């Protein structure tokens, strides 16, 4: 069919030389550093990730990719981070890279000059940042905040409790959303201000992750720790989209990983003297997952390029809706298609399915994003 029959507008995907290079490097890095045996052994570890690998990533400059050069980064964008996150997801490589990247963007978007000058170079250099955003209500709306901050003089006294704060225990920087006089605010908390017992490990569905509850009650921070309130609303909105984008990239990688192990099994396991991959009920399902993955990757790389334009919100929400459902389904079928072995802890299918719950149910699931897409596209 000739090109001109394509009547849909704005379909360009931009992909830079830097992205192509990073994608290649990150693929080989993830394969090297995160074979499944390593993933399994890290599940048993306290922190859940390998500090050595983290340092290597810092040395490769990956933590400063989307940080301007003046703050010690390489001045590229989150689009380049996407190309790292996808291959990491495929190998289930768990690190605080996503939360750290997102924290840097929040600081860039809403931090004061001194906050940026102070914290961004640290992040680019390998400091771990954690995001304290989720609360007991479970609402994905980032502006639904019950934790409070009361300003008195030079001090902000915090109250309330944050949930599902990944890597809080090893974080060098914690950014939290709080409500100050009824308005959303961001505050940077020095982990040393938090008593050890106020950070409690949680049991979460994705065992490759480390997640914590933080009791903010009784914690006070200097008022200079609050980010620019005039810029906070916009920063949080952009944060939501960036979070969705990176989760989508991770989901695409995870889908590919779930496919990898399943295809391998379908090509080697026999029943009734046939390779089970020859059965259409399995083969066609894998094709459905493949075509959905192709769609998800197209949305992700499109969204990466347009996220800061007016098409950004639509693109990102499509990426998140598509990749969430697809990863969940790929993980689900991975278990089922492994048969009896799939029901065991030893089979890796469950690792991917757990990860799919993790990525799909953060920052809104597919139904949530389609609802918002309906507003964008139909009203």
């Amino acid at each position, binding site marked *: 069919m000739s090109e001109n029959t394509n009547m849909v507008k704005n379909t360009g995907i931009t992909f830079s030389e830097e992205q192509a290079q990073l994608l290649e490097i990150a693929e080989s890095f993830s394969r090297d550093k995160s074979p499944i045996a390593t993933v399994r052994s890290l599940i048993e570890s306290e922190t859940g990730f390998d500090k050595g690998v983290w340092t290597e990533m810092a040395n490769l400059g990956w933590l400063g990719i989307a940080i301007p050069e003046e703050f010690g980064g390489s001045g590229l964008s989150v689009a380049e981070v996407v190309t790292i996150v996808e291959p990491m997801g495929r190998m289930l490589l768990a690190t605080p890279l996503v939360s750290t990247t997102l924290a840097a963007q929040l600081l860039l978007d809403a931090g004061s000059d001194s906050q940026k000058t102070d914290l961004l170079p640290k992040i680019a250099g390998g400091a771990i940042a954690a995001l304290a955003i*989720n609360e*007991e*209500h*479970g*609402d*994905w*709306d980032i502006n*639904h905040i019950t934790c409070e901050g009361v300003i008195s003089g030079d001090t902000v006294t915090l109250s309330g409790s944050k*949930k*599902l704060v990944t890597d809080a225990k090893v974080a060098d920087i914690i950014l939290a959303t709080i409500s100050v006089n009824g308005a959303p605010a961001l505050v940077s908390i020095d982990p040393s201000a938090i008593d050890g017992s106020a950070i409690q490990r*949680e*049991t*979460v*569905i*994705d*065992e490759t992750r480390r*997640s914590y*509850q933080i009791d903010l009650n009784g914690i006070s921070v200097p008022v200079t720790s609050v980010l620019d309130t005039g810029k906070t609303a916009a920063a949080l909105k952009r944060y939501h989209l960036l979070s969705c984008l990176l989760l989508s990239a991770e989901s695409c990688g995870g889908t590919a990983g779930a496919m990898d192990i399943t295809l391998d099994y379908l090509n080697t396991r026999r*029943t009734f003297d046939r390779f089970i991959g020859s*059965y259409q*009920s*399995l083969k066609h399902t894998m094709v459905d997952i493949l075509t959905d993955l192709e769609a998800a990757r197209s949305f992700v790389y499109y969204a990466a390029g347009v996220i800061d334009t007016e098409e950004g919100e639509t693109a990102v929400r499509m990426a998140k809706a598509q990749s969430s459902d697809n990863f*969940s389904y790929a993980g*689900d079928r991975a*278990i*089922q298609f492994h*048969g*009896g072995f*799939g*029901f*065991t*802890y*030893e*089979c890796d*299918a*469950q690792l991917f*399915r757990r990860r799919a*719950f*993790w990525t*799909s*149910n*953060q920052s809104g*699931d597919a*139904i*949530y994003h*389609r*609802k918002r897409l309906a507003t964008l596209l139909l009203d």
Partner: protein
Amino acid sequence: MSETLPDIKEFKKEVNSWVTNNKPAPPRFLMPQSFMEVGSDEQFEYLREWQEKVYNAGYLGMSWPKEYGGGGMPQIYQDIVNKELVAQNTPFMVNTLGLNWAGPLILNMGSDEQKKAYIKKILSTEEIWCQGFSEPDYGSDLGNAQLKAERDGNEFVLNGSKIWTTLATQAQRMILLARTNPNTESKYDGLTFFLAPMNVDGIDAQPIKKLTGEHGFCQTFFNDARISDDCIIGKEGGGWLVAMKTLMFERGAEGGQAGGHMSMPVSAEEVAELSKRVYREGDLASQDPVVRDELVKLLMRGKAMSLNNARAKIPALVSERPTSISMSSKMLSTELSRSIGELATSLQGSNSLYFVGDDSAIDSGRWQRTYFQAFSGTIGGGTTQIQKNIIGERVLGLPKT
């Protein structure tokens, strides 16, 4: 209980009052939903004690023959008890396999010695039973069972392994399908069915960690394990017939089960109820129109299964494909459980990220576990994909794949 049958109305009252006064306090752990999910000694002991108590009160095996330890009463009394146990949400009977499959089988096909030896202990929990049917490399097609049982005098020497042997580490007995003759023309003719002891040298039950991270099913290895030929039920070489009979009990196609209830299944109604107390986007999940649509679809699947069961009893309404409903019910109910777990989890917003064991997990993480546990049903006993082959071929008459 007196020799004259109690008045039905009085009996109902009596049962109601007994259950009310004797049901156990809720446990500290997240309750398993069936015997297949019992994963710790603590859970097992809690459930075992309850079954023992019910039996000692005379409320289990009520219609089984008195001479073997049953109550010798009409089935209706047991039905009344069963209903009350369900209505008061009491724990299921942990010796499920003994009460529902092995027991009825022994009463139906066993020798008098076997009945005397086994029936009472099944009821009292003195002997827990497990099942040795599936094998690791031969899928769920029982006809392919390869575990070797070689005759040596009046003993058999067992070699091989069985999977999905739930509760094998707790069990004293196993219903075991083994190949006593590898050279028969039809593969079905070489099988023999044993009521095998577990406490024998060379039988080793290994707990397997499930995808949930919990224990709860086993692989059992046989290395030159010797059992007496007294253990045969049916005929040597006639094991296939006995296995088919067992499946009739398993599927409830034939009656004679000891009573009690064997599972606390999740239902779509419970997800609907959940939706009215969890929040999504700051409002009750039950208020989201798309979620509502999904909930209704789920409720309809549950309702359809109940109605199918009712319709299956009306010959004129199932005359064209009489086996359609019964052959598809395992597939439909297990897939429904998976959907229930998945939807119920997704209702919870970011709280769906928690898992069993976290204080913040909604309903102690029950729904997340329901989802993962459901695969035992969609995989075990013939995967959904295999079920569809079978239904397509046997009910719809389509050619073999």
